[in-house]
């Protein structure tokens, strides 16, 4: 996973971007992150898949990742090398999926101050999103302690593995 503390380009999207737009249904017959990445935002922003580089960010408005539960949507973004997502708010299942996959997410009401192409970075410990193009800093909501613990342990799979080995 790329380091969200390293400044890199922000790809900015609007409100209510649903998972059909992140990972269109005709491509999600695959579960391979690299293959899914080739079609990320295919219809909404066709240049994304070819131009996105490792370590860049997705920034969105309200309710990012609404709609279907398909984990292929966050997987398409990890496959594309996305280092993190900053959004004014997230849909519930998508948010869970990101936490579970270890894809850094921050809920940041000021996300709409970020313009497409700005260089940003995310500090997960402090919840600060820094805009290196404008010099602005935005304060995101810190993750609740339970979720922080889950992320610190490396996501749900690592958490569950540890739990299962503790029981046996």
């Amino acid at each position, binding site marked *: 996973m790329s380091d969200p503390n390293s400044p890199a380009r922000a790809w900015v999207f609007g409100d209510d971007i649903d998972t059909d737009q992140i990972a269109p249904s005709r491509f999600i017959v695959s579960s391979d992150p690299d293959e899914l990445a080739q079609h990320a935002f295919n219809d909404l922003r066709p240049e994304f898949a070819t131009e996105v580089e490792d370590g860049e960010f997705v920034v969105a408005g309200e309710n990012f990742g609404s709609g279907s*539960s398909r984990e292929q949507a966050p997987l398409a973004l990890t496959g594309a090398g996305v280092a993190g997502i900053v959004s004014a708010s997230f849909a519930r299942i998508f948010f869970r999926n990101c936490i*579970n996959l270890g894809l850094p997410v921050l809920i940041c009401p000021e996300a709409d101050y970020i313009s497409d192409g700005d260089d940003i970075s995310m500090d997960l410990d402090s919840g600060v999103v820094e805009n290196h193009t404008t010099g602005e800093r935005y304060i995101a909501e810190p993750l609740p302690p339970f979720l922080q613990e889950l992320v610190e342990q490396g996501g749900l799979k690592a958490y569950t593995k540890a739990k*299962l080995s503790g029981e046996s």
Partner: protein
Amino acid sequence: MTGKTLAEKLLSAKAGVDARAGDYVEAVVDVAMAHDITGPLAFQTFDEVTGGDGEVFTPGRTILTIDHHAPADGVQAANNHNVIREFAAEHGTHQYDVGEGICHQVLIEEGHVAPGDLVIGADSHSTTYGGIGAFGTGVGSSDLGTVLATGELWFRVPQTMRFVVEGDLPDGVYAKDLILRFIGDVGFAGCTYMAAEYVGSTIESLPIHQRLVLANMAIEMGGKTGLVPADERVARVLEAETGSSVELPDDRRSDDDADFASVQEYRAEELAPRVSKPSNPENAVDVGEVVGTDLDQLFVGTCTNGRYEDISLVASVLDGETLASGTRMVVVPASGSVYRKLVRTGELGTLTDAGAIVQAAGCGPCAGYHQGVLGDGDACLATANRNFPGREGSLQSSVYLASPATVAVSALYGEITDPREYDGLPRLDDHALAEVEA
């Protein structure tokens, strides 16, 4: 200390603690479900966390379905189906194959879910189980893979947004119109992280198949679950359908002094048929505002409105009629059982005589995979649950959402039509009565 909401009670019971909204709990899952899109990825997680030789925690309460790409529309889909079959055979889980229907319909018809259960489905419409008083919620594949391995999952106990509807629904107004009203009022994200709870005399008099519609589309306002408190009617209908006895939980309603995030109140008499315009379910308006919109396709089906009563209503309107010229109708029964019942009653023939196409049970074109996707410029009126850009095919197509009655009557004219102009629509009471007599 205030009382508890139904959502708080259900999760408290499964977590073994006195949980309140905002608490994080680990709860025991009663039923786990995945389908041909989400299953293969969940199995990868399962193998990863169990080291590749793990056993499914509760195979008897794990159900795998093949419904999204069924029958297979390509080699990769067919291979996914085989992954489902092999996993089910290896681990002894339940498995329903091509043609047996949509996960949510099959789980209820086959008696896998009881009131009070905690149901985790790797599908966003897993809220549907709330229609029979179970806590159903959708998750991604990593969550589901974990549940397969451990039988447990973490939850944030949701706040509850309560919808109270009192009185008698007018003719031509159904549960679909109610939920499209709710979604339009609170917005597409208005109930995010919350449980939607539907109560009041109108809800209590709804047949079970209509309650499922309300629960199913809770996700379209961001809801974690959608709950209709279980009652004797739920037990009676499930017992008649599955042939086995159903036990209702003792405590199955929110306390009067529970803390609700908000309460929305409605008078049933004031409600009208609703249509959601493209490209979001929240764009819901009274049908009068879109009457006359030209249609190319009509789609009857899905986990929202593909049940026997829905399709039967459409058949009764089309009986002896033909589809308006220039339109096509795709009908996809929600389950094989629904399909066979339509054959037995002769209603399937009524539909095809009118010019409709009846396809194998499953999800159909709802998610834009196959069986009738839309081309550039096509307009479709659907009994489905979503109308996002490109949801049923081309980004340049338009999907309008409505009840089966609105779709059926519109099919006669080739344009969106107010179902109240049609004389003789089956009343909800008739269905409720049939249900009680069954």
